[in-house]
């Protein structure tokens, strides 16, 4: 669909022109602009610092009328990221009923980055981690650091 491609191409060009801090964005396949690969550095001060997280952004055919999906390819100990092989990320703005066609991918990615610094346990997909985050932050930090070390090594 022409619309989607045009918009995505534009956003991709914009992002390449003005890269987001702590993020490197590339296309796994030059031919398919609907799939993006994003490497996010663990934000400073977060338990993920020092790690590099590989994210996959999939833009639907109907983009921007349908939201993209974001998933972690790198395992991460985070209340908002499913702890399975999918690594789906739950972002409020990406939910079908909250998505706005005007939302841009860089906003989505910035939001994801922000979520690394500041998990949202109330919007969690991993209840256990969320609970730990809320009730036992120390333990959470410890675990998150351990995972970062184990899975998200630079």
């Amino acid at each position, binding site marked *: *669909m*022409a*619309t*989607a*491609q*045009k*918009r995505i*191409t*534009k*956003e991709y060009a*914009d992002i390449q022109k003005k890269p987001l801090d702590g993020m490197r964005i590339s296309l796994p*396949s030059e*031919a*398919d*602009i*609907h*799939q993006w690969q994003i490497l996010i550095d663990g934000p400073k001060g977060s338990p993920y610092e020092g790690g590099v997280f590989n994210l996959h952004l*999939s*833009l*639907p*055919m*109907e983009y*921007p*009328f349908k939201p993209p999906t974001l998933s972690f390819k790198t395992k991460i100990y985070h209340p908002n990221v499913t*702890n*399975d092989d999918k690594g789906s990320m739950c972002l409020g703005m990406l939910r079908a009923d*909250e998505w*706005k*066609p*005007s*939302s*841009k991918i*860089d*906003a989505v990615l910035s939001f994801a980055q922000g979520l690394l610094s500041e998990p949202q346990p109330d919007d*969690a997909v*991993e*209840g*256990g*981690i*969320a*609970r*730990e985050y809320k009730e036992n932050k120390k333990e959470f930090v410890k675990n998150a650091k351990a995972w970062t070390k184990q899975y998200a090594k630079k």
Partner: protein
Amino acid sequence: MRRRTRRSLVNICFFAIALFLIVYLNRHQPNNKTYAWTTIRYRTTSTTLPKTRGICPGLAGSSKPALVVSRVAADGDSNWLDALANLYHLCVYTADAPADIHKTHLQVPANRGHEAMAYLTFLIDNYADIPAAGAVFVHGARWAWHNDAPDYDNAALLIALNVSAALAPSGYHNLRCDWSASMCSSSSAPPQGSLETVLSAMLEPWNARATSDAALPRAFAALFGGDGSAVGLGSIADEYASSKDGGRLLLGRNDAVRAQCCAQFVVARNRVWQHSRDEYVALRQWLLDGSSDSGTDEHSQSRSVAPRDDRIAGRILSYLWHILFMQQGESNAQTSSPGAYRGVDLERLNTLACPRADDCYCRLYGRCGLEGCNTPGHCHGQYTLPPDFRLPDNWMATHSYPGPIPKPPKQSSTRNRKITYMGPIREEEEEEEDLVEIEARTKTKRARGLSSSAIPSAPPIPPPPGGGGSFGGRLTKDAETKEGDENKEQNGTEDEVEAEVCFICASLVVHNSVAPCNHRTCHICALRLRALYKTRACAHCRTEARFVIFTDDATKRYEDFVEADFQETDEVLGIKYEQKEIHSDTILLLRYNCPDESCDIACRGWPDLHRHVRSIHHKVLCDLCTRNKKVFTHEHELFTQQDLKKHEKFGDDHPGAVDQSGFKGHPECGFCRQRFYGDDELYTHCRDKHERCHICDRRNPARQQQYYVNYDSLEQHFRKDHFLCADQECMDKKFVVFESAMDLKAHQLEAHPNGLTKDARRDARRVDISAFDYRTPHQDNRGGRRDREGREGRGRGRGRDPNTEALPQSTAQPLRRDELAYQRQMAVQSAQSATARTFDDQMASTDAYAARPTGRVQDIVTAPRNHTTTNSSFPAIDNLRLDSAANTILAPAQAAPAVTPQEQARRLQHSSVMDRASTMLKYDQPKISDFRSSVSSYRTSTITASQLIDSFFSLFDVPSADLGKLIKELADIYENEAKRNGLLKAWNDWRAINEDYPSLPGPSGVLPGSPAAAAGSGGHRVLKLKSSTAQSSRSAVSKQGSWGNSTAANPFPSIPASSANRAGAGRVGATPWIAPSSSSRPPPASSRPLSRPSTSGQQNGSAADAFPALPAAAKPNTMIMGLTRGTVRWDDGRGSNNRANPWGAANGGSGSTTPAAETDGEPEAGKKKGKGNKKQTLYKFG
């Protein structure tokens, strides 16, 4: 005798004659296939030659190739040629136009020989002025069955035609590539001179093809031989006699002139000049002489002139052109004088005249790398021979449109508005140009001295809410350059020049759409959202708007428009149009436009469109896409059948293509072989049409969804892997299946008590704990179990009807004292739970202890953690639900001290319910009071439970799971058990009806009368029915081979208790669980360390002691026990992946215990267990 001899002779003679004929007719043809078809030597008998009246004006200096069009009035409008004027120098001859003797231009002497007369006239009268670029000879009709395009559109072909490439190989090329209807395929077309052709020409004189083929050899001989008398009819010898220039004239019987049909071709100038002008004159005379009004003596000429029948004459000539023009070899290239080369090598000529179709498409029309070119003469999807060699009568009508639709690359200057408009969506590349035009127009219109910077309050496109959006507003530099020269004159101000780009689709804005929030998009995006996505929400801020305004004013705010500004209003879509033009543009988008780029048809509906593309373009639309894809009609893609399959299966992956969509094909339902638009649709289908096993799903929520084709198949699975109630009633009800035999038994006792004898019932009530897997800290215990297995065998199968097998097994076992006690205990519990009562009833119920031995079984198992004594500390809030119920099973002695926390708990429950409700209602006071009043109406029985739930649905706008939580919590508050029950039942009923898996009970909550763990200071208690865990890990067990650990002879599967993975094997291992010695087999039971529920230690003497502690199961979602209203709740979201090895370090647990065992309490075990942050699970038989 003589007569017989004579007869024999006659027969022999006949035979000989027949033989001779056969041999003669099939005699070997001379190998010499060189024909003397180099020069037209026909000598006309006519004394006068037509005057030169066919001059094509302006041809002399033309650098473009000539396009010689031979048309008749019936060909219709010749406007379509206008679009070609950029590419070709047009020479249009109208053969049947009334003769205008004063004109010298583009006239033909007679309407004869079809297109040949015009072609020849052109060649004769413009012989010296043929353009160096060559000449293209075509028919006058735009649409003709033989035009080699899917829609038979010659305009498109001529635009695509690469003349120089076509002329490169041999200076002549037929415009057709497909071999159908041509002489190219030897299988479909017999040689012209063959008996077969002659015969069919005789049998079917009306068959122009056969007749002309039969006439062709002689006609050629006459044309090239020159001497009409030399070609005597029926003369055999003349084949050789008529040879000239060392070649033959008459086509051999087995030889065929192979050529493309239909006489539309491109030819190079030097190939035209290969023949002298006189030759063309002679050829034309051959045609003219053959016509009835030629004035010559028909009879004498009949054998050498063109056949009278125009169809035949025309067709013969159509097989002549390549002989005249085609350059056969390198040697010939050097000969420049006409007729200098000697002879035509027929075989070589045939090869040249019939190039492979794929080569042809590529060379002529740039359609390279086509697929489906399995035969040399056909490429799938490129051309299909229409039935009866004719297009439908309405073809012209359905395809005629006022202007030249096809767009010659970068050259068309005469585009009508419609096309310009449609461009943007169809094609990226042209979009910009087109839009620029429109943009330019809009700009002019808009030139009111407004620069958008002048009105900062209303920027054309507001910045994105997320901030940082410099993306939209204004066009980038490159687009500005693209606007190019044509807009230069409008460079009024910098702002005006910048074309606007829609923030949403990144395309240039044609018309603006303004929403009440004053957010702007292009009208296409707005229409897309409204018409296709059916949402009235603003693309920027999601604000719903009843109307948006489509306007060309880039700055005017929504509120500044007045009703009078609108020319049109569309109530359905909610669009007000400021200009009629915008309205028509919008309507245009919503038509059923044919997706073909060069087709302007708008159909009446989908069926019509499907029919249209199939019949006209010989393509198909993807049905799933047309039904589901949210694009405008013309944005759909056309496929050939093959491409469609690929599209469905693999998506539109064109490696390397720029238009990758990421579409991976339409998923297929493995059962129905039916494809669905996307995964969501497939899911819906599977959900509606196929079955899933809720038990398996629950066991492993993370696994890939697995479906069963129908309930029968699922039922088989139930039989095989789970415990299906075999009772007919339940079979009819469906989904009455249990995870464990124990659940099934409990169900049977409850639902089908009549089917069992009293003994069987009693036995069924017994829980044979020897079946459970006692996992003790020390491995050496395994030995004992193994011994037992050895003795008892592992005969217990799974999942079959327990009525027949499982129950009787234990009947003969003598009951130990403690078991008997347990049975009594069970009876008490069931009696209690069977009675509707409040907490205060409890004491009375306990009185009924021994007196009510029958009733339902209650299997309650507790795995208490981290608590010391029941009443020593205040219950934690998240345990409240358990708490109230837990007290009901505590010892009566403890009831009194528990009252205070009980009430406090209730208060807390109240407030937590209200909190939840208010949160869900978003603190909307009126709604909250509605909620309160509904709840109290239910309490006072003003409304029924289902009415209450209905009112909740109207009140709450939340997922049913959330509502479920609220209802469960609410139910806990009701002290009246009937109310509580009723509410939960109503909720479960609702779920059963409205949710996927009818038998799946709610995820949390406590049923009335359900026993629960005593409140502990840590608040983490687990009530667990072990059987569920056992069942749930069956498959894992058998895989791991630890199934064998359970006693085979026991009717119940062993129960793994498995805090293990989470809690750590070491810790668990250290827990000295002691099982109550309730095994049906005392020796083994006593020989192993028996697990001891830690509860018993703290709840001395209480009835609740009867419930042994069992460790928590690792499996997170073992929610239910199969009974319809069994419930479970867990407080802890952790450990969802922990069920990998539920057996690994499981503590031995027991599904039953006895009061006798209570003295074995081990408080430290309880403490240790309690440290784990485990799920709290409560199972309940309703």
